[in-house]
């Protein structure tokens, strides 16, 4: 079935004219019709527009055009936090009303320039705040491996859509693990690039010093392809970094002989599930078999990462979300004066988790508390970053579980925000340190059968080496080939 193909498989078939882009797009639409009632990965999608893009790609393909357009005719679905011109943008919130994007995000421009069929609005936790996609104003997304369980979050729709073969690949965003954690829980590849690698122009901001866009794919090669298309400096995002963009796909040679992988001793915590631990241990053995050297390392400030994150992320969010005030766009609830209008609009438009974080973020920035909380957290952030930079003097990458457990049941943690926050323990430091990370499938729990993710963390702008290491493991193991039985 065409919807099950990877980007490299599909583009090869398209180039040989064995299949058409319309057939591939239609296969994705058929799969959405068949399974999305159960999964609800998509908030919406415009089938006619997607097929029109496919027809345009087919026309170009039949004219022999495949010049530099490496994604020509490939259906890629988009998290509802990225602006796609003339498509709805809601961030899974009520507050944006009937918002239609007036422009394309830089990553969308780049995907379109590479020939991709950009379609669909994928479900997420409201404003990317959450770890389960339960905080959406548009309903729950379900895990394709077990629909009583959550797909992870905040990019739950992006992970579920790839795992359920409703698209060939998708985009998400990662502020504290929102790509890697759902990728792990749904059994696909999820890459969070280094802060500054990809332009954030057209990504609705949650925490500006932590947010980064990245791909969800069916294998590491596809992640390398999409990273290459999306990377690079952008004058419209002053935090994008003018580093050269290497050929990430060419670096995937399967050779990890002599590379050093670090195992942080602080990550073997009490809450780590036995089956997850066993799968990660087996992955480490696999790396040894492939010729890598395993080194124990220490990241001594690991225990402070969650607290640091929830100060910095909520502080930045409280400032970023001030723009949703009912004046220039989105929904509005009227008031007698502007302040009443803002308050009522925001009270009616934001969901519970977003309100919780706005209040916490406003509090830690407020007069008298700023130094005690926000400045203290920024200083601890320096310590966390230094832990990683020191570790990377000794090792090429760091190996950890992506999550402490496999996917949990819907409703299991939604009543206890702190427990939900603590489930991000392994992914959060990567954003604070500004490094890159990827989750790849590394096994399954037994009963029920649920995916387990292996997280690899790499040096700042070290994606080339990170993906090479991830790819070598993936190609030596069968996990990424397994499909959810939908």
């Amino acid at each position: 079935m065409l919807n099950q193909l990877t980007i490299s498989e599909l583009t090869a078939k398209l180039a040989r004219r064995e299949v058409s882009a319309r057939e591939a797009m239609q296969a994705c639409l058929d799969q959405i019709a068949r399974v999305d009632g159960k999964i609800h990965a998509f908030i919406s999608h415009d089938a006619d527009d997607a097929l029109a893009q496919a027809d345009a790609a087919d026309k170009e393909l039949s004219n022999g055009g495949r010049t530099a357009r490496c994604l020509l005719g490939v259906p890629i679905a988009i998290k509802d936090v990225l602006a796609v011109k003339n498509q709805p943008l809601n961030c899974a919130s009520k507050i944006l009303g009937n918002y239609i994007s007036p422009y394309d995000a830089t990553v969308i421009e780049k995907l379109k320039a590479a020939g991709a069929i950009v379609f669909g609005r994928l479900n997420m936790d409201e404003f990317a705040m959450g770890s389960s996609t339960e905080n959406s104003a548009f309903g729950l997304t379900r895990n394709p491996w077990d629909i009583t369980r959550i797909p992870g979050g905040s990019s739950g729709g992006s992970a579920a859509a790839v795992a359920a073969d409703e698209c060939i690949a998708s985009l998400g965003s990662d502020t504290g693990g929102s790509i890697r954690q759902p990728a792990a829980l749904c059994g696909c590849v999820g890459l969070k690039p280094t802060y500054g690698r990809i332009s954030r122009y057209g990504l609705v901001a949650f925490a500006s010093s932590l947010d980064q866009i990245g791909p969800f794919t069916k294998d590491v090669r596809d992640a390398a392809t999409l990273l290459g298309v999306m990377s690079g400096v952008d004058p419209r995002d002053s935090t994008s970094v003018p580093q050269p963009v290497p050929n990430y796909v060419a670096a995937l040679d399967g050779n990890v002989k002599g590379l050093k992988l670090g195992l942080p001793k602080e990550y073997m915590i009490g809450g780590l599930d036995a089956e997850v631990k066993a799968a990660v241990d087996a992955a480490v053995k696999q790396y040894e078999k492939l010729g890598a050297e395993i080194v124990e390392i220490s990241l001594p400030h690991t225990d402070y990462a969650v607290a640091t994150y929830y100060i910095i992320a909520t502080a930045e969010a409280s400032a970023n979300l001030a723009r949703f005030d009912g004046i220039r766009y989105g929904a509005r609830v009227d008031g007698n004066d502007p302040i009443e209008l803002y308050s009522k609009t925001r009270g009616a438009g934001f969901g519970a988790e977003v309100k919780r974080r706005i209040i916490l973020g406003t509090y830690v920035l407020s007069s008298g508390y700023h130094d005690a909380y926000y400045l203290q957290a920024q200083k601890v952030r320096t310590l966390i970053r230094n832990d990683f930079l020191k570790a990377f003097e000794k090792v090429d990458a760091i190996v950890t579980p992506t999550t402490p457990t496999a996917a949990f049941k819907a409703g299991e943690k939604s009543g206890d925000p702190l427990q939900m926050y603590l489930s991000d323990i392994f992914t959060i430091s990567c954003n604070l340190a500004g490094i890159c990370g990827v989750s790849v499938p590394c096994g399954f729990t037994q009963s029920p059968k649920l995916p387990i993710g292996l997280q690899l963390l790499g040096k700042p702008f070290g994606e080339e080496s990170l993906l090479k290491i991830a790819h070598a493991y993936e190609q030596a193991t069968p996990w990424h080939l397994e499909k959810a039985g939908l």
Partner: protein
Amino acid sequence: MAFAEIDVKYVAHLARLALTPEEEKSLGAQLGSILGYIEKLRELDVSGVEPTAHAVPMVNVTRADEIRPSLSHEEALRNAPRQANGLFIVPKIVE
């Protein structure tokens, strides 16, 4: 260690966020436990440590001060909840 009691009503006003009495109550309790957890950061001695605002140290990224293409008036107003004569309509601010 005892943690600060958040005055939710006051902070909600700062954030321009209308809350129901039930929301105020549940947020107060939840934020109390989250702040209790966050207190652990005070265990660390950070004297002499510089704060990190951004992981990538870049400063003063500027561009030439030139007119560039931007959204048209019509596009900029397209998502407005209320508009007239090419302007956003808001409640009366001054008498």
